């Protein structure tokens, strides 16, 4: 199939790469002057494991190429993977496509009327219907909604082998076309749900909201456990063992970040406030913002409200392991808090240092290190903020030797509290 893909989000790139690999002719819409795909991807998408190579490969094979938006409008199959805030732009491009359709067929191989647009952007509940209203569904000009389900760091795997797919379509032809397109990715599929676009959009929001609630809940419990002198690890295991609950998304920590997750949750929170006067998710989001500063507060109290001129080491600043992105990351709030208190900050991260340098490069209080132990020299405290695997079993003896004060604040409960304490560290976790 010849398919135009609109948008430069991670989902757009990953979808383009994998659809090209499975034999489609993919046209990625690009109205900029940039001709090198890797340059256009930008740093955070470029770091997505496996993506850059696959994109380059597919460009070489010419299964994947850039196209100008004007020519793209003439195609009959489109995928829209745009930023949640870009609804107006999507609206414009669909009306552009509709205008082209209302004229005469432009070439013989073009089916005169039929048109499939797959929307996999989170524009909010009801927005696919708004796009559909621009087209004539009786002539099989259809916008379907496909709930994307990818997380940064695992994007290719998520698209290649989904366990479950949800799409929203009320048109038989469009449903058939969408299924056909997704067939190469259905080997592990356990369930395929088809519903109306509005329902599918709502379902997608609901899932994200549920996950946010779980994280918010376990964090609240962790903060309480701390005050009651109970270990949250034990509570977490007991919660997870209950078959009605399960173990997923029950790790307490210093808050969640990431653009997609935060924005989608915010979208649902706003909808709840506006239509229901319910502040349930709003509260979760507000508490999450507070939770991001939890490691700072532990440091603050440990040093009796004065961290002026202290050396503070951060291990991990990306919003989650496997990603270089800093979007809504807890580390940003902590760095700002430390800067305001005139502390010196020493940062290590396996992937995100470049992004940190872009934000704080040249700041006299911010220093970056390629070696995680070097970041600990003369340190008054280590704050572990991202659970990169390489931090899980560090050389404690070396750490102890390098640090000025043996203090670990583990924002992800990654380390063994008992081991750290037995070696001589003061250890604070989240809820333990």
């Amino acid at each position, binding site marked *: 199939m010849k398919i135009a893909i609109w948008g430069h989000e991670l989902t757009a790139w990953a979808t383009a790469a994998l659809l090209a690999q499975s034999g489609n002719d993919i046209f990625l819409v690009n109205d900029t002057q940039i001709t090198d795909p890797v340059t256009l991807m930008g740093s955070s998408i470029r770091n997505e494991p496996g993506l850059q190579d696959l994109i380059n490969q597919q460009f070489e094979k010419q299964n994947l190429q850039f196209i100008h938006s004007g020519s793209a409008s003439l195609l009959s199959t489109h995928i829209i993977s745009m930023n949640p805030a870009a609804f107006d732009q999507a609206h414009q491009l669909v009306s552009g496509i509709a205008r082209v359709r209302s004229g005469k067929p432009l070439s013989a191989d073009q089916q005169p009327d039929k048109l499939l647009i797959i929307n996999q952007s989170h524009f909010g509940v009801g927005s696919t219907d708004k796009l559909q209203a621009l087209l004539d569904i009786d002539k099989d000009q259809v916008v379907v909604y496909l709930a994307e389900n990818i997380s940064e760091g695992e994007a290719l795997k998520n698209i290649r082998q989904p366990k479950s797919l949800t799409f929203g379509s009320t048109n038989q032809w469009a449903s058939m076309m969408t299924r056909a397109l997704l067939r190469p990715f259905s080997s592990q599929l356990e369930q395929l749900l088809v519903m109306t676009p509005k329902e599918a959009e709502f379902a997608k929001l609901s899932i994200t909201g549920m996950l946010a609630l779980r994280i918010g809940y376990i964090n609240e419990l962790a903060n309480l456990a701390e005050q009651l002198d109970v270990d949250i690890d034990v509570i977490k295991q007991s919660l997870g063992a209950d078959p009605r609950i399960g173990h997923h998304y029950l790790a307490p920590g210093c808050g969640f970040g990431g653009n997609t997750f935060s924005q989608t949750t915010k979208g649902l929170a706003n909808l709840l406030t506006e239509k229901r006067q319910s502040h349930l998710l709003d509260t979760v989001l507000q508490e999450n913002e*507070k939770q991001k*500063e939890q490691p*700072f*507060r*532990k*440091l*603050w*109290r440990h040093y*009796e*409200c*004065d961290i002026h001129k202290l050396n503070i080491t951060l291990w991990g600043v990306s919003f989650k392991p496997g990603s270089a992105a800093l979007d809504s990351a807890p580390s940003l709030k902590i760095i*700002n*808090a430390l800067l*305001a*208190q005139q502390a010196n900050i020493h940062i290590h991260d396996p992937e995100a240092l470049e992004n940190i340098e872009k934000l704080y490069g040249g700041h006299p209080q911010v220093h970056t290190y390629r070696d995680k132990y070097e970041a600990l020299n003369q340190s008054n405290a280590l704050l572990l903020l991202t659970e990169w695997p390489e931090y899980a079993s560090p050389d404690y003896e070396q750490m102890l030797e390098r640090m000025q004060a043996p203090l670990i604040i583990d924002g992800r409960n990654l380390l063994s509290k008992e081991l750290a304490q037995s070696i001589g560290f003061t250890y604070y976790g989240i809820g333990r």
Partner: protein
Amino acid sequence: MSVHDTPAWKALDDHAATMKQTHLRDLFLGTESTSRFDTLSVSHQHLLLDFSKQRITQTTLSLLKALATDCQLDDWKARLFSGDTINTSENRPALHTALRLPANSELLLDEHNIAEDVHVNLTHMGSMVERIHAGQWRGYSGLPIDTIVNIGVGGSDLGPLMACKALTDAQPPAGHQLKVHFVSSMDGSQIADLLDQLSPQTTLFIISSKSFTTIDTLSNANTARQWLKSASDVKTELLNRRHFIGVSASQEKMNQWGIPENSQLNFWDWTGGRYSMWSAIGLPIALRIGMPGFKAMLSGAHAMDEHFKTAPFEENLPVQLGMIGVWNINFLDIHAHAILPYDGRLSHLPAYLEQLEMESNGKSVSRQGKTIDYHTCPILWGEIGPNAQHAFYQLLHQGTESVMCDFIAPARRYEELDNSELQQQHQLSLANCLAQSRLLALGDAAIAGNDAAPIHKRYRGNQPSTTVLIDELTPYSFGQLIALYEHKVFVQSVIWDINPFDQWGVELGKKMATDLLKPLLKEQPTTVKERPFDSSTEGLLSAILQKQELAKQDQTQAKEKGSSL
């Protein structure tokens, strides 16, 4: 020689004899009637003052000018601005005008540039505001401060309270998000209610007191500190460091209380309490409207200072306002003054002006130490105009007292909003403002045919008023407005030959209270004979002690009963 005996005063007395017989209605009917507004209103930048509803003519103004000249007003103005020691009873200058000098100005006091001190302090204040607005002023638990409680009384309360309310439309988002409260009352009722609703982890207290010994303020501050202590289980030193800012002229007293040096803001001996909202006492204002807003307010006041200093008598807003007040008080025998803002945002302006005018000019001894034989500051009170229309306007229209009024209203409001209802409410408020001043001035003559109404429906009129029309209420125009009244008060003090900058009348009561605290705390013999008070005070003391004793006995009995069950 008393001002009473000057030729200018005598000429005004004679003129008043005629003017007392002249109704305002007739002034508007007379030959100068049509041009009355043109000749009797003056404006400067964003303020317009209409004096045409005052019981004056051009003759009145020229006689008042002669009086001002006789009283050497220009000379006094120069002494005020230059930092001369004009607050003689306290042996210091009154330099609130120095607080609003632009950056890089110079004003030497004892060969020291105080304008520089002012700006150093403003910078310090600005850095505090910035830190709090950024969410980076942290409480003992590490959470950002989101609530401010200003503890202060008198000048440390009224000015900031009034300005915060007046300038709500000038708040940047960070100032709007902050919760700002004011606590002043000595009996603890305000603070007790307030603390119940606040979170100790995120509340910062500003303790404002010029002397840092004011008992009202310090007792509230101690209650606040105790509240933090019992909530936090944290060392007092930490609480002092993270939850208190001190604003005072006494660094030593702030140190003693435990405020660390970088949480201290200064102001100086040469600023009177009721003239201090331009100093660090204005910190709550800056927290609400941001430093740019605060500086705009200072610029507005400075513009008024320059105008007061340089504009000729006929065009000088504060001079005209002050001199016409003198005319009303000393020559037309009017001793009540109502402040009537037609804008809900100015709801605290009457209380502010009550202090500014009555604490400054409520005096009866001349600068020469003689008892004076003429009236000084009248009784001043007020309320938001449209609300007062449902309260005391009855007395203004049909009572037996002559009252002079200041109507204060902004010409423009709600323009940036797409809300025609609110825009209409503003026009309605203006219509009421104009209707009331017109009716007060003209009486029945304002309404055709009303002279035929029954006597209880008749309006006497002839109540003089000034209308202060503000272009739009902004930090700048608000600064102009308040400085206008400050200088008006000064003008009148010059004519009356009194020192407007001391307040000895409030001192003795404080001392007396200290004496009376002893018997209440039972630190003194409780038998009447051994105590020196009058029989009324003794009677009240005994009644209070007796009631407290009885209640205590009841409680003990109830407790015993409870434990025996």
